[in-house]
């Protein structure tokens, strides 16, 4: 069983690795050596399949992996990659949303004010991102990715943050909730504080999500958990739900700009969904901590690649 899965992962990695190599070969060498039209979509499918697995096992949103890796190692233009990344993150969020909402893990009341701010800023971010020269966006993307890695490595989470008193704003908005906690065999009541600070932070988060086409789970969860003080479970689920709103607004901007190439979008979507389907099963046999390290190394690599590509410097691959 373990061996089968391992070889499956290897098989999926193979085209990605091949693709990364041929990608630089193809761009560096003459266009005469161009592979057939189906080559890159297939590579994309393989890469996203692996990303789906990593996302599921390592708990890192597919969007965060998708944009830096695909833009770094495939010939696709960053404009299309960002849009595809947004759509990938959007679909993942849409798919998880109903379950989280029904289980009352994602909170609509918490998400709505946050989403209003984040989605407005995501639109602005998307517009700025499309107006800026590509190499600037690519460099900024690299810097953002490295920042995300730093955040992931020192992330400190709090299962049940202590919120002594709900603040005025959250009381006016009546943001509080309750969910069933099996371990305590009781319902956990939660409330939030520092609402204004948190909402301000979402201006930046929304902007970055729109600009780079990244999902923003890496930023949503810490802010919801550590600033607002929502329980970790609620933060994780609400963050996912939030993505479905933020990414929708940014996606429309990209859509209206015509950044959609279906031959990129659909293989990516199908790849990542199949990957996460397999990934959830792999979770039964592989350790998340190990995968977390793979993801961090991958992101460091992709971040470095994005910076060097943006600045026109040489890089290993």
């Amino acid at each position: 069983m373990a061996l089968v899965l391992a070889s499956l992962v290897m098989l999926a990695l193979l085209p990605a690795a091949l693709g990364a190599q041929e990608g630089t070969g193809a761009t560096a060498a003459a266009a005469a050596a161009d592979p057939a039209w189906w080559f890159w979509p297939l590579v994309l499918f393989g890469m996203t399949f692996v990303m789906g697995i990593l996302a599921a096992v390592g708990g890192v949103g597919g969007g965060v992996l998708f944009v830096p890796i695909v833009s770094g190692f495939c010939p696709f233009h960053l404009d299309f990659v960002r849009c595809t990344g947004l759509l990938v993150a959007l679909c993942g969020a849409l798919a998880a949303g109903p379950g989280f909402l029904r289980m009352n893990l994602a909170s609509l009341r918490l998400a709505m004010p946050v989403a209003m701010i984040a989605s407005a800023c995501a639109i602005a971010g998307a517009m700025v991102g499309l107006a800026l020269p590509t190499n600037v966006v690519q460099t900024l993307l690299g810097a953002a990715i490295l920042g995300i890695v730093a955040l992931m490595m020192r992330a400190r989470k709090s299962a049940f943050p202590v919120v002594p008193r709900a603040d005025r704003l959250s009381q006016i908005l009546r943001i509080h909730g309750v969910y069933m906690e099996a371990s305590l065999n009781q319902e956990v009541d939660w409330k939030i504080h520092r609402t204004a600070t948190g909402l301000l932070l979402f201006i930046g988060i929304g902007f970055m999500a729109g600009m780079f086409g990244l999902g923003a789970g890496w930023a949503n969860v810490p802010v919801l958990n550590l600033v607002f003080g929502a329980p970790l479970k609620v933060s994780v689920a609400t963050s996912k739900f939030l993505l479905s709103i933020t990414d929708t607004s940014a996606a429309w901007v990209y859509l209206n700009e015509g950044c959609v190439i279906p031959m990129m979008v659909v293989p990516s979507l199908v790849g990542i969904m199949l990957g996460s389907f397999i990934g959830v099963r792999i979770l039964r046999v592989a350790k998340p901590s190990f995968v977390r390290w793979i993801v961090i190394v991958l992101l460091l690599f992709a971040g470095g690649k994005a910076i060097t590509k943006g600045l026109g410097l040489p890089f290993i691959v």
Partner: protein
Amino acid sequence: MAIICICRGSKSGGRRLAECLSARLDYPILGREVLQEAAAALGVPAEMLERKMADRPSLWGRFSSMRRAYVVAVQAALAERAASGNLVYHGLSGGLLMRGAPVVFCVRLIAPMESRVRVVREETGMTAAEARGYIRELDASRSRWVEVMYGEDIMDPALYDLVVNLVSLTVEGGCAVVTRAIQGPEFSVDEDVLARLEDFRLACQVKLALAGDVELRALELDAEAEGGTVVISGEVPLRKSGRTGDRIVELARGVAGVRQIRLRVEWFDPYP
């Protein structure tokens, strides 16, 4: 009274030391039988478990969750036997398996290569070079095992309470030294120590129950107990169904002796 864990290179006289201590202190002795008990708890053949515990872990073995299940099972079997507060254990990595438990005394036995080679030659009739290679191989795979599973260096003296070198001392001498070392009040077993040992046993049983579940096996959940209250920690994917937490609690509740369960887990989002 104490739980004496003997860690030794193969053919260094670990068994003789264990037998001497067991006779002198009148403690029960436990060796490889612990593997059989663990295998029975997991429902796998004992030979397979023995192999998994001894082999050098492969690349896949490093991130395979099954290996951890084996370790947890051995730990649980050992904790079960240690609950009374006196035991001489001379199996694999006792000190590391019993880490966190009270009144554990870890002894490492080292012997000069020549004497180990002599023992192997007497037992098997190998040539000196063969025997030397055999011992090196065994030592290397054991040390690799400890490194992979616990991130520790098996040679590091800081892991042990006492390292006995058999270059001048005899096994009987080592036995006398260990016997004397555990006479102090720090190894006396009172109500409190028994309660902590019981908690340790309980936590191991909970870990075993969780490690046996297909859904939870890979999550490497950790458990600690205090007075029957078990705290479970680890990283857990937040599924749409929301059932993972319930499943953990349900399994942990099924362990006899558990009074209360607290989940102190880090949830993460497994969806792309």
